[in-house]
């Protein structure tokens, strides 16, 4: 399996352990990634809030760069998925608009084409379940994560709005994390926060609202007996992990729950060590998870 790969900004910024663990995990799974190193930020909804046409053109450029490789595109960020799907919906809806946008790309020799069966851009989670396959994944597991209690945390941008995010064709996309946890041998933790918002988008605008969301979800997962959370979104990770000590102050309770990126959880089951997957870089201690993994070996 070979894919055009858009790592996003945050996986090479404040969560480099995501980019690193994705590279290791992809190789072990036999997925070849062709990085789109000329591609630009998806805008994370903020550029669309400023100027919709600007966001649409920037993402059309990324899609066109992927189309140049002749490969389907993979991203590793729920926020990229949501922002890019929103722009793709508008680009695909109107031929005249698409032609206008493509004029802006022509200087670089690029063109975004709406193919007969549509341009495919999937995050790692969707790809793993729908294209790679859970049976194939199960065959690669070297160290089943027996007894590891994992709470799924999706991130809004791969859940809503369902009409835009392919739920007509793939209605169970809101259950994939549970399926992956199960295949890796872990235990699913059922708690209220799994499909709620981490609050990150308003961290600089309303810190209290933002941290209360994160603190509540982490606390609920702890109360449900989780050893860790797993998320396919690095922006959720910024709030759930990096801001966790600050969130603890807002909700007035002790927290301290490891938050893994999806490729890290997969990587652990494939036999990689926590250090190789960058887990010591996390703010919320991953020691409890590391101890459990060590006990499995």
């Amino acid at each position, binding site marked *: 399996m070979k894919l055009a790969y858009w790592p996003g*900004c945050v996986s090479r*910024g*404040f969560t*480099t352990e995501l980019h690193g663990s994705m590279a290791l995990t992809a190789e072990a799974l036999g997925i070849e990634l062709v990085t789109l*190193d*000329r591609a*630009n*930020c998806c805008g*994370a*909804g*903020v*550029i669309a*809030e*400023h*100027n*919709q*046409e*600007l966001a649409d*053109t920037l993402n059309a*450029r990324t899609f066109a760069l992927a189309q140049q490789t002749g490969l389907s595109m993979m991203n590793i960020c729920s926020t990229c998925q949501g922002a890019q799907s929103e722009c793709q*919906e*508008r680009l*695909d*809806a*109107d*031929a*005249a*608009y698409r*032609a*206008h946008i493509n*004029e*802006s790309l022509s*200087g670089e020799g690029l063109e975004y084409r709406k193919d007969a069966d549509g341009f495919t851009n999937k995050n790692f989670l969707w790809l793993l379940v729908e294209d790679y396959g859970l049976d194939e994944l199960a065959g690669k597991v070297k160290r089943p994560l027996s007894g590891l209690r994992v709470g799924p945390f999706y991130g*809004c*941008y791969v859940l*809503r*709005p369902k009409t835009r995010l392919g739920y007509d064709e793939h*209605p*169970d996309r809101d*259950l994939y994390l549970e399926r992956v946890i199960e295949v890796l041998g872990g235990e699913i933790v*059922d708690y209220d926060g799994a499909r*709620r*918002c981490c609050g990150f*988008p*308003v961290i*600089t*605008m*309303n*810190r209290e*609202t*933002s941290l*209360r*969301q994160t603190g*509540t979800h982490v606390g609920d997962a702890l109360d449900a007996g989780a050893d860790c959370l797993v998320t396919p979104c690095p922006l959720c990770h910024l709030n759930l992990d*990096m801001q966790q*000590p*600050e969130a603890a102050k807002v909700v007035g309770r002790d927290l301290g729950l490891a938050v893994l990126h999806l490729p890290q959880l997969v990587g652990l089951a494939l036999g990689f060590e926590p250090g190789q997957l960058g887990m*010591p*870089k996390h*703010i919320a201690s991953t020691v409890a998870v590391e101890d459990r993994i060590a006990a499995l070996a």
Partner: protein
Amino acid sequence: MASYTLKVRRYQPEAEEDGRRGAYWETFDVELDPTLSVLDGLLQARDGSDGTLSVRCSCRAAICGSCGMKINGQSTLACKTRIGEAAAEAARISGADASGPLISPPAEKELADGDGAPGPGTESAGNEPIVIEPMGNQPVIKDLVTDMESTHWKKFRRVTPWLLPSGPPPEREHIVPPESMVDVTQSVACIQCGACVSACLSMEADPEFIGPAALAKAYRFVGDPRDGQTTERLYDLANDPHGIYDCTHCFACVDVCPKGVAPMNQIMRLRRLAGHDHDIHDVNNGRNHELGFVKIIERKGTLDESLLLQESYAPGVKGKLLPRAASIKGLLQSIPTAIRGIRTGKMRSLPKLIPGVHPKLPGDAQDHVKAIYDRAEESRIQLNLYVIGEGGEEDQAAEAVEPESVSEEPSAT
């Protein structure tokens, strides 16, 4: 005809007054055609089993907006939800349709504590109960009836939902161009059912958030050319700490709205007008954050996170020479996080620590990004799929909307 089990979250305040438990779960078995609605099922339960089961409803045709509630955890109108489809969804999310893992439906954990409720797992897998709860973010008056006055309507009045024209009234009627009415069509479609308020994840964390329904209605008047208080409205909504910059962009309201109002999209349009068109530098750093983000991508192509943090709180030279007290507080609050990041190695590199060191895109890629900015900032086309229709109608849409005539940012004057 088919049989269904409804698991209803009940609340009987008079029971509480008698010292009995007021809130509990109760199941009702009903029998009806799968194409009929969940509301039909509830009314059958009320008529056949328990006349005290309280539910608000009127038109039964998704017009009056009375029967908002949560069905399988999703806020919606009970009259617009087919009972057969609700049962299938209940089976899907519980894994009883044999394709998914066993995750319990919403509030299953509380079930065991409920008075008179059957224990979990007593239902047969073929008839997974449809879980029905009152709307969220609103106090419950009785069973499925919530107090919309104390949340929804109070917030609705907060945005002054009527026209405030300026100057003397015209001799005859106001002449309004049709396209400016098309622009507000989407927010006019609201039927005040409260489903978006029920689903709002910001309001869960901040009950004072003005919220999706009221802010969508605010856009209806901000976007109306007859209104004379556009700037004042935007200034007010941008500077309220619970206003347009308190929305976390989670799409919950977009997903649940039975009328396609997409309240979050209206909030983003309010931000675009307040920020770009009126250049309102609000106390919540909303405008600073937007400008900082947009400029960083123009210069670097990908996000320089530490520069974004700095520019959100203390933008430009002025922001650094004369920072507001709130800016200093914001920057100080981020220091412990940075120190933790340096300690674990997460932020132990110059581009992550020093704003502006972040590299540009390779080769001439950054120049092409800049060229995209130049053109898009000039034309600023805003394509509204609610108005032109979505994919599948492409030819029609393409005929109707030449690039030059695509509806542009509404005039804000």
